[in-house]
């Protein structure tokens, strides 16, 4: 039995498609994409006229907190949030407790993802044991167990020598190295962007340069080692320019930014509300403009949420004492579409940054809907307006800095491996426990 998604406006930048297409799926695989596919009586037909169809969205930077901090989020709750946000694949960061620095944790994560059965969960392993920045983690075993990249995200690899060794070693196992770029001594325990607002508030501040000097270092180390480097959560003018420069050199370097960096600025911190605290911090309006421009011109390959769930009391405290991070899975697409609707960014660029861009950055499947590709797709009503209400989120956490914003463009249906996992505002349980949607 075939599933035919009929009459939707398909945007698939990897194939250069931007028009009405029918998509035929057999099982978990796409078999045909054409302007008009004849249906037969045995087909299940999904009338998608008036909707937009994107390849299943991919978020290569999330924290699902499991194992160890299940009170913040679990792989199951995070997966549901992903499905509700239109994401069919996510890459989970290794800063769990214990850290994903060994094959056992990687296998545990994959098992939990399998039980959750909502979306593809790609584990990212640690570069250093326990993220301590001292000794290399068992990167080979991590790769064998299913990790698709390595990073010490949450912490930078401060030692340039260890970063070099990590890149050299990961390269041999065909893993991308994801870098959390932060010079810790320059950041000096700051909790917001250094700029005019921090001058007014007196909060300890982190200069843009604390990010940029590490971006520069890691680009140079990528040149030295030939390793594939992906720069996480870029937030500044200088970072975007350095990424452009690296690509100009022909280096194997990609970069991502997060919705909060192209939507909000450090002006928000004036409230002292820790919902606006994350690392890197919200930057200036100039930085925000540079990030938007980087998405428009393709310098930034991916939009990733850095979805970082926290419990209420970890945010409802003094700004300096609060945990870093915001959740983003259930708002990411609509915030990205806002760039298109309000700021003139090309829709194809936005879809690329949510699909084929991140897939290519980490070398994972998906991100396009050609024949024999994964039947992962996201159907979107581009005209529906909605107000962000964190209380209704599938994520366990509520630390969303976009509460109350009116956004346009809403996920109508999320299809992972040919099966609907989310439809019209509700998770559908059909995929629970099936093996098919594992990577």
């Amino acid at each position, binding site marked *: 039995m075939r599933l035919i998604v009929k009459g939707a406006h398909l945007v698939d930048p990897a194939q250069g498609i931007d028009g009405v297409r029918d998509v035929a799926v057999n099982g978990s695989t796409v078999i045909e994409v054409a302007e008009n596919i004849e249906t037969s009586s045995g087909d299940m037909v999904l009338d998608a006229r008036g909707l937009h169809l994107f390849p299943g969205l991919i978020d290569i930077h999330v924290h699902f907190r499991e194992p160890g901090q299940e009170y913040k989020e679990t792989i199951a709750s995070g997966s549901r949030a992903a499905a509700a946000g239109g994401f069919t694949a996510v890459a989970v960061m290794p800063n769990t407790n214990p850290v994903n620095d060994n094959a056992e944790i990687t296998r545990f994560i994959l098992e939990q993802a399998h039980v959750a059965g909502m979306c593809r969960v790609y584990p990212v392993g640690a570069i250093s044991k326990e993220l301590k920045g001292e000794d290399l983690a068992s990167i080979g075993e991590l790769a064998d167990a299913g990790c698709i990249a390595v990073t010490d995200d949450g912490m930078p690899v401060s030692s340039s020598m260890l970063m070099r060794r990590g890149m050299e070693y990961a390269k041999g196992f065909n893993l991308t190295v994801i870098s959390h770029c932060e010079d810790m001594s320059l950041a000096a325990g700051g909790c917001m962007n250094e*700029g005019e607002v921090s*001058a*007014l508030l*007196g909060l300890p501040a982190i200069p843009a340069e604390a990010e940029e000097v590490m971006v520069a270092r890691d680009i140079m180390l990528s040149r030295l080692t030939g390793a594939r480097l992906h720069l996480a959560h870029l937030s500044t003018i200088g970072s975007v320019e350095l990424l452009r420069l690296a690509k100009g050199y022909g280096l194997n370097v990609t970069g991502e930014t997060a919705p909060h960096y192209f939507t909000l600025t450090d002006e928000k911190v004036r409230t002292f509300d820790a919902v606006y605290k994350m690392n890197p911090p919200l930057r200036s309006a100039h930085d925000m403009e540079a990030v938007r421009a980087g998405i428009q011109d393709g310098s930034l390959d991916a939009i990733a949420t850095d979805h970082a769930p926290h419990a209420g009391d970890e945010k409802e405290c*003094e700004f300096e*004492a609060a945990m870093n991070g915001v959740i983003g899975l259930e708002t990411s697409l609509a915030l990205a579409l806002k760039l298109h609707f309000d700021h003139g960014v090309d829709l194809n660029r936005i879809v690329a940054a949510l699909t084929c861009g991140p897939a290519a950055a980490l070398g994972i499947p998906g991100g396009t809907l050609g024949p024999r590709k994964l039947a992962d797709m996201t159907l979107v009503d581009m005209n529906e307006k909605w107000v962000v209400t964190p209380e209704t989120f599938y994520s366990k956490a509520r630390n969303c800095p976009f509460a109350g914003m009116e956004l346009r463009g809403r996920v109508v249906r999320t299809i992972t491996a040919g099966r609907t996992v989310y439809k019209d505002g509700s998770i559908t349980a059909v995929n629970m426990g099936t093996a098919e949607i594992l990577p």
Partner: protein
Amino acid sequence: MGFVAKDLIAIEPLEAADIIAILDTAEGFLDVSRRDVKKVPALRGKTVVNLFFEPSTRTRVSFEIAEKRLSADTINFSSTGSSTSKGETLLDTVKNIEAMAPDILVIRHPAAGAAQFVADRTSAAVINAGDGRHEHPTQALLDLMTIRQKKGGFDGLKVTIVGDIANSRVARSNIFGLNKLGAKVTLCGPGTMLPNKHEALGVEVTSRLEAALEGADVVMALRIQKERQSTPTFPSDREYAKYFGLNSQVIDLCEPDVIIMHPGPVNRGVEISSNLLDGSRSVVLGQVENGVAVRMAVVYLLAGGVAQ
């Protein structure tokens, strides 16, 4: 016009007229501290809780005297722990104290924004007695009161602030207040102590003390905040005193009737020489007396029970 607000968290959001109204009220309170019976019944039956999460003697005593002279019932709560260490969180503490139905909370805390955080979560009036490196509004008000008494006003006055400005909540509050009232503010200190984006503060900045002092009507020396520095910002006390310390020679560059201020406590011989501090141009003790009057005024005005 009076000053009507639920809380006093910062000088930055105030209008010039608000500041003047507080200063005028404070002048009316000076008299209470100067007579034999140093007490008025204005705040009889009101409860004020002084919440100090950071060691402080001067500010706490000044607030306590102010509250007692207004006949308020005062309760002191001191704790040097913060929510980062194990134990009760700031939110827990606030909820507990809120349950005792205080009318006013005076809070000092090592984290910037802590006073705002508390104010957003209590119906009591909140007075910021210093939050991290953010603001210390009552200190600025007493400084402004002292300047007004000595200089008659603020328009066109050259006020030079010397010292660790980047780490100083006193400097920040004073800069906001002086700007609003029409004074010209010059900041001076080693580059490591000057705020990075001083344009946002609307001030002149220099690392040359002579240039900063030339023609100054008011000079404010700040305490070197060794306890708030992660990496050293100057080589030694000796070098600091040599290039940025106030003494009787450099002070001659100022206007002849210059006044010298210091929020205390003083590192004698580092940021200011002893003979200057104890000399006739120093108004440090006047600052202390005005401190009580200003705090009486703020407590009195916020006790007015203005609905949010």
